[in-house]
Structure formats: structure tokens, C-alpha cells
């Protein structure tokens, strides 16, 4: 039964286009959500199906007409897919302003992909003070106006209900993260499928599937080498295959496309739009969320200790400035805490993972010899 559920997660994770076509055949409109954080609750409440658009592993050609080569391949692959028609039929894409590269994605999208409307979501750098919350809320209001132009209807009661749906999903994803920490038999590839599939299913469907999976999960398997994985994206099948091959068990993740999405709920407030802005203010421990005290660094160390990890693997997306800035602090903190750390570089165009394999094989030896 668990294997049947894993198959469903896998099918959704590897077939975003089929999922999109299914929803469109049901008469639903699709709004794409680019990394790293978008107000999905708002999109959901206005009658659209939010679908993650984090690009794909592929060769980049057309995106280079707009971007220099030395630029985040996640962002480049989103534009590449847009230009090549992979998202055809989507009503819009919401692109947040959370890093410099994402800002340029929005501007380039307007010219490169004219059949899918670009909706900017401009976040403040200082999101916690009242003026930051007001700024975020104003950004959401802009998103509402753009979605209304596409036929959506904003209703505070509907948003409050969508927030409940999303908070419930957050809770179940936090729970699955905790449970998988003591289930080494669930492979890194399967764990990735559980998290990745969330982007291509409605949250109602995904919550139900994860709840079913948690209920079906049996006895924990044999112990493996516990690691914490950190980075923006870790969905490359070859990468997860290497983790599995070397007996590495992801006991926690600090991955933007995975657990970072689900750490913070929207609070209960009279004004649900304000609640959504407060949620963003309360979010933390992420390279693209400005915090001069960098609590993320200690969060990684504390989580690794709490989950009994033997080491930390930083999966660095090439040319990701925010992650590269944080890496130095993470490395120092891990050294101070006597926590072994490995750094592997990945990008969306990678075909050969030999260097990653050697790196992780050596790290495995370092942890076990």
C-alpha cells in the first residue's frame, strides 16, 4: 500500500504537464508560482490552481537570449520552459522579487513569453516591522488586481478558508518530515517525490495523500547514515540516487523547495490578507529572507543535533548568491559544532554527477571510517 502511494507521489512529481492538463480539462485555470515564496493561498482562494514552476533539468538554449550564462539555472530553465511552450495554457505566472535573478526573470518573461501573464510579487527587504507588513500586503493587493483581470474574484471569507487548507497542508508536511526522520527505508528519491508532488497537486489532494501515507507507514527500517540536506533544490534524480546508493538517510532538510515552504502558518486574524502578510513577516531561516542575525545557520546545526544527523550536506545551486553568502557561516558553525559538512554543486544542466558521487562517497567514508 505504501508502494502504491509512493507511485502516486512519483507520478505527480514527474508529470507536471499531465497534472496541469488534468486540471485544465476540469475547467480550472492554472497560475504558475515561481520560487521561492508566492501567496499561493491567495491564488487558491480566487479560484485558480497554483502550480509550482521551479524549472526542470534540461539543456538551456533559448533562455540564453535573455540571460548571461553565469546565472542561476533554475531561473533560466523556468524561462526556457516558458519560451518552449511547456507551460502553455497557464493563465499567469507569479514571480516574487526575492533575489536579483528572480527580479530579472519577471522582466524577461514579459518579452519572452507573451501568452502567459507575468504577475510580480514585490516583497520588502524588512518584512517584520509594521511598515514591512503593510508593504507585503500592498504587494498582495497588486496580485489580487492582476488575478481579477483574469477572471478571479477576491473574497476575504474564501481567503480565510484557503488559509485553513494551506495551514493544514503545512502541518501534514511538517509531520511527514518528522516521521521520515525515523524511517530510513523511505529513500531520498521517495522523500523528494513526496515534497515535489505538492507543487503539482491541489493542496487538498496532497494533504489527503500524505495523511494516507502516514497512516500506512509501517515499521522503521534498518538504520542508515543520517544527514541534513540544505539548499534551494535537491530534486535531481541522480543526486537522490547517490544519497541512496551510499546509504544516506535524510533526517531533516533545509531545502527551499521542501521544508522551508511549510515551517510557518498564517495566524488567525480578522483580516486574512493581513494574516498572510504577517505569515511572510514571521517566516525565517532562509537565504532569501533577510535577517541580519542569520538564525538559519544555528537552525541547521540545532536541527542536525536534534535529529541525530552524522553530517550536513549543502547542495549548492551554482551561481545562487544568497546561498553562497550563507554557506561560509554554515561551514563555520558546523565546524564549531564538530558537525562534518560536505558541499556539492548542482545545476539544472548537469548531466554527469561523477564529481558529486566522488564527493559524497568520500563524505560517507569520512563519517563511517
Amino acid at each position, binding site marked *: 500500500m505504501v508502494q502504491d502511494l509512493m507511485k502516486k507521489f512519483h507520478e505527480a512529481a514527474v508529470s507536471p504537464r499531465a497534472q496541469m492538463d488534468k486540471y485544465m480539462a476540469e475547467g480550472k485555470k492554472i497560475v504558475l508560482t515561481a520560487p521561492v515564496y508566492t501567496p499561493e493561498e491567495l491564488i487558491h482562494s480566487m479560484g485558480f490552481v497554483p502550480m509550482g514552476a521551479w524549472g526542470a533539468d534540461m539543456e538551456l538554449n533559448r533562455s540564453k537570449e535573455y540571460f548571461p550564462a553565469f546565472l542561476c539555472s533554475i531561473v533560466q530553465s523556468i524561462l526556457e520552459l516558458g519560451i518552449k511552450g511547456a507551460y502553455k495554457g497557464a493563465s499567469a505566472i507569479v514571480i516574487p522579487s526575492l533575489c536579483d535573478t528572480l527580479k530579472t526573470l519577471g522582466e524577461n518573461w514579459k518579452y519572452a513569453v507573451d501568452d502567459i501573464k507575468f504577475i510580480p510579487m514585490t516583497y520588502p527587504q524588512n518584512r517584520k516591522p509594521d511598515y514591512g507588513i503593510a508593504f507585503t500586503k500592498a504587494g498582495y493587493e497588486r496580485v489580487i488586481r492582476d488575478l481579477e483581470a483574469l477572471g478571479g474574484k477576491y473574497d476575504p471569507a474564501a481567503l480565510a478558508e484557503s488559509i485553513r487548507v494551506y495551514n493544514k497542508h503545512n502541518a501534514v508536511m511538517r509531520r511527514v518530515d518528522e516521521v521520515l526522520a525515523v524511517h530510513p527505508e523511505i529513500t531520498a528519491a521517495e522523500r523528494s517525490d513526496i515534497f515535489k508532488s505538492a507543487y503539482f497537486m491541489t493542496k487538498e489532494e496532497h494533504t489527503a495523500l500524505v495523511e494516507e501515507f502516514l497512516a500506512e507507514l509501517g515499521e522503521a527500517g534498518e538504520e542508515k547514515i543520517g544527514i541534513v540536506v540544505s539548499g534551494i533544490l535537491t530534486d535531481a534524480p541522480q543526486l537522490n540516487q547517490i544519497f541512496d546508493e551510499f546509504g544516506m538517510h535524510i533526517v531533516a532538510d533545509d531545502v527551499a523547495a521542501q521544508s522551508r515552504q511549510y515551517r510557518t502558518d498564517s495566524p488567525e486574524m480578522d483580516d486574512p490578507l493581513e494574516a498572510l502578510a504577517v505569515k511572510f513577516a514571521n517566516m525565517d531561516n532562509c537565504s532569501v529572507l533577510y535577517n541580519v542575525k542569520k538564525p538559519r545557520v544555528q537552525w541547521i546545526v540545532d536541527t542536525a543535533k536534534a535529529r541525530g544527523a552524522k553530517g550536513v550536506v549543502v547542495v549548492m545551486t551554482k551561481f545562487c548568491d544568497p546561498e553562497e553568502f550563507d554557506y561560509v557561516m554554515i561551514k563555520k558553525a558546523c565546524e564549531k559544532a564538530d558537525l562534518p559538512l560536505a558541499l556539492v554543486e548542482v545545476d539544472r544542466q548537469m548531466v554527469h554527477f561523477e564529481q558529486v558521487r*566522488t564527493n559524497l562517497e*568520500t*563524505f560517507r567514508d*569520512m563519517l563511517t*571510517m
Partner: protein
Amino acid sequence: MITLGIDIGSTTSKCVLMSGGEQIIASSLRIGGLGTEGPAEALSDLWDRADIAPSDVSRTIVTGYGRNKYEGADGEVSELTCHALGGRFIFPDLRTLIDIGGQDAKIISLSEAGRMSNFVMNDKCAAGTGRFLDVMAGILRMDIDELDECAAQSVSPASISSTCTVFAESEVISQLANGVSRPDLVAGICESVASRVSALARRAGVVPRVCMSGGVAKNGAVRKALSESLGVDIDFDPMAQYFGAIGAALYAHRQLQKLSDNK
């Protein structure tokens, strides 16, 4: 117990036979690594030199870039792990190993007890590797083994980019056109490799005793430039190119001991 270590690199293949995990019985090295006849030739050469038959070998471990494709071994181990073991075998108080091979560079930190405590690898870039020296020697129409002696005659080493092999190639051609002497160019090329690798080494942390392994270790000009850049002595052993194969043979011996302990 006889164990065999095979190190299939990107440009050379090395084999080492060890007895009891303590004594090197025979070794061989052939030009040609992954995807060539190099590994077969190195093995054939090894059997010619050794006074034992292949059937006397209790366990074989393969390492290096070509380890995944080699089918004649009992197991495969990462080259970093093997270089650490091999380096420590030759230098028992080794703390930092700088391995510059044909296509990559690696820095390995060892604890006082000899455990691997940290490592850093370069990634998909020829700068700071043996390939960089190969390309430059090609432009200068020199044999790579001549670079060391030529650099020793330098008066004022030329400045060569350590960022990119392709850019550096253009630079060398421009400097040749500007009349810069060959020894100064070669010394600059060796310093360029050292500059790139010393930056990598600082990321891992440099604790004496430091030694070099890999083919580039034979180049005294690179060793000297690295030593000056890092401010530490860098030891060299004539077996430096065999550290990976030695480590593989040692690893095979450890495995046999473990199997025997578990019986």
C-alpha cells in the same frame, strides 16, 4: 595477505601490490586512464615486475575516476579516501594532502589520528590541474616533464591568469608574441596552478605536515610556488603518483582484516 590497489585516473593508470598492508611489493604506472588500454597495460606491467601470480591476490580495490567502469576488482573506493590512506602510509604524521591530478585538484585534511576530517574538490575546471599544464606545454611545444627544469631558469615569472585555461592560453600566446622568455612563461604557468590550488587549500585549512600527490606533484616549480603561497613546507615522495593505488591496496587489506575479525 597480498592486496592489489588500482588507481584509474583521467590520464594515467597505477597499480600497487602490497603484502600484509605494510610492504609495497610492486608498482606500475602507464599513461592512459579511463577508457584506454592504460589499466590493462599497467596490470600487465605489474605482473611482469612482481614475483607472484594474480591468483595470489586476496583482494583488489579500484579507485580513481575510472573506478565505476572497472570490473575486475572486489570493490571500489573514492580516490580521496585512498589518497588519504596512501599519503598517511608514506608520511605517518601527514595532516594535509594536496592532490593535483590530470583533471582535478583535491585537498584532504587529516586529524592527528589520521582520520579524514575535511576535504575540498575543484569542480569541472581545468585551471589548477594537470590538464592546465598539459595545454600550456602544448602551446610551448614542450614535454610536460621539461617544465620543471625550464621554470628553474626563470628570472622574472610572467603573470598568467589562474581563472580559466582558455583565457590563460590566449595570455601565453600574447606573452610569447611580446617576447617574454620561455622560462619566465613556464614559471608563471606553474605559479598560476599554485595560486589556484592554494586558494582551494585555504578553504580546507592547511596544517603541517603537508605533502603533494598526483602527477603534478613531480613538478618542483609548482611545489615551490605552492609552498611560498601557503607559507608551509610541502613534502614530496617519489611514490606521490601512487598514493591512490597504495591507499586502495591498504583499504583492501583493512577489509580483509574486518572480514577475518567477523569470522
